[in-house]
């Protein structure tokens, strides 16, 4: 009996989370939150929204804003509900729709992303494709793609052919 209840709850939670985070327009995976950080309102509920630009000392010290232009948290985060993001026109959107936010400035890239030209696709070329959000590859606070360590170079053939002989 107990097991059944747990199962039911598990299924409910799963379906609910799918509903919350399945993109409305595009199938996207769960946004890449730092573990334990979402929902934001768990901490921000009783806090005042300080819109002043300053060095953060108590939380989020690791966030460095290296995004083009002079940016601050509430340019993109919704001060009315910290669980959401905010478009330039004031509209509140969910984190799984963040491509709309990025697309406000990066319109050409947004168009390419929609057509599958920009960004990574996995799955089927003739069917269901898995899209990624902009923020899966680009840290929104510091969007330049980070350097990677390359895989090893191929073995150079020696004068007498490759070493296999």
């Amino acid at each position: 009996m107990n097991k059944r209840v747990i199962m039911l709850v598990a299924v409910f939670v799963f379906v609910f989370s799918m509903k919350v985070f399945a993109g409305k327009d595009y199938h996207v995976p769960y946004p890449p939150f730092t573990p334990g950080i979402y929902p934001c309102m768990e901490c921000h509920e009783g806090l005042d929204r300080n819109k002043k630009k300053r060095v953060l000392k108590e939380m989020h010290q690791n966030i460095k804003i290296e995004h083009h232009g002079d940016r601050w948290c509430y340019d993109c985060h919704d001060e009315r509900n910290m669980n959401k993001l905010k478009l330039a026109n004031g509209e509140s959107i969910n984190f799984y729709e963040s491509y709309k936010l990025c697309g406000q400035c990066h319109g050409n890239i947004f168009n390419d992303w929609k057509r599958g030209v920009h960004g990574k696709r996995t799955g089927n070329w003739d069917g269901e494709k898995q899209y990624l959000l902009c923020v899966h590859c680009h840290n929104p606070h510091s969007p330049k793609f980070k350097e990677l360590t390359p895989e090893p170079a191929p073995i150079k053939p020696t004068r007498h052919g490759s070493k296999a002989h």
Partner: protein
Amino acid sequence: MKEEKKVSLTKRKFLKTFMAGAAAALLPLAKAESAVRDFDMEDFLQKNFREMTPDEVKKTLKRLEEKYKKKYGKDFVVKGTPARENVSFAYGLNLSKCIGCRRCVYACVKENNLSRAPHQIHYIRVMRFKKGQGIDFENSEHYYEAAKVPEPGYFYVPVQCQQCEKAPCVKACPVKATWTEKDGIVVVDYNWCIACRYCMAACPYMGRKFNWAEPQIPLEELNTNTHYLGNRPRMKNVVEKCTFCIQRSREGKYPACVEICPVGARKFGNLLDPESEIRQIIETKRVFRLKEDLNTHPRFFYFFHS
């Protein structure tokens, strides 16, 4: 009496020489013993894949599955999935995005059961070019070692089989062991290849590789989901090449290199589908192909675009 002795002496001498000669002749045979043991009459007498009836194809695939089970102790699936109607494959590669990380090279090695070191085979060669000098292969480098990529001042061009519509390799093959499939993939019937390597000499992209030795693959890394014209285990003395991961693409999946690329530079799809990524690229970006002047009509399109 005297004469008899002479004869017997000669006989002894003859036998001695003969035995020594026979032993000497057997020596290289002992070396080739494994080759003799591995010789498969069924393989030898088999028809060219294209000339087989559907029934013969079925039998061949089954025979190969049994053979691989015996050789590797694993259950293989050897498919013969034919080309789909109204599908013409093409590939796109965004050179503005490629960072030269070689993830594609090794995803391909794993997916396609390529021989590992020391006799290493890679279908993808990531060429590094100095910025500002254009794509000049004479001055490119694919053995580059870097702590981090992309390196400032360089750009990267991965090159693999370009799946040409007018493939010079296909024209060069004297036994028709390689041909272009209906969906555009250039394939090799490994059992029909005679190891002359004319196709390799004909290819202007260095897209073909030769198994100079028995391919070396760690047992636990063998991919057992295979296609007859694709990633099934190869043998010594056959030519092989990229097939757009025929075992994946014929089932609707993206090739392994597309799926691994961390920057989304690699695009793949059906040219006949106007909504496909590759069509969108060709229609909206400025694409080019390598060595266009050779009139090989590659199905591999490169482009620069943020």
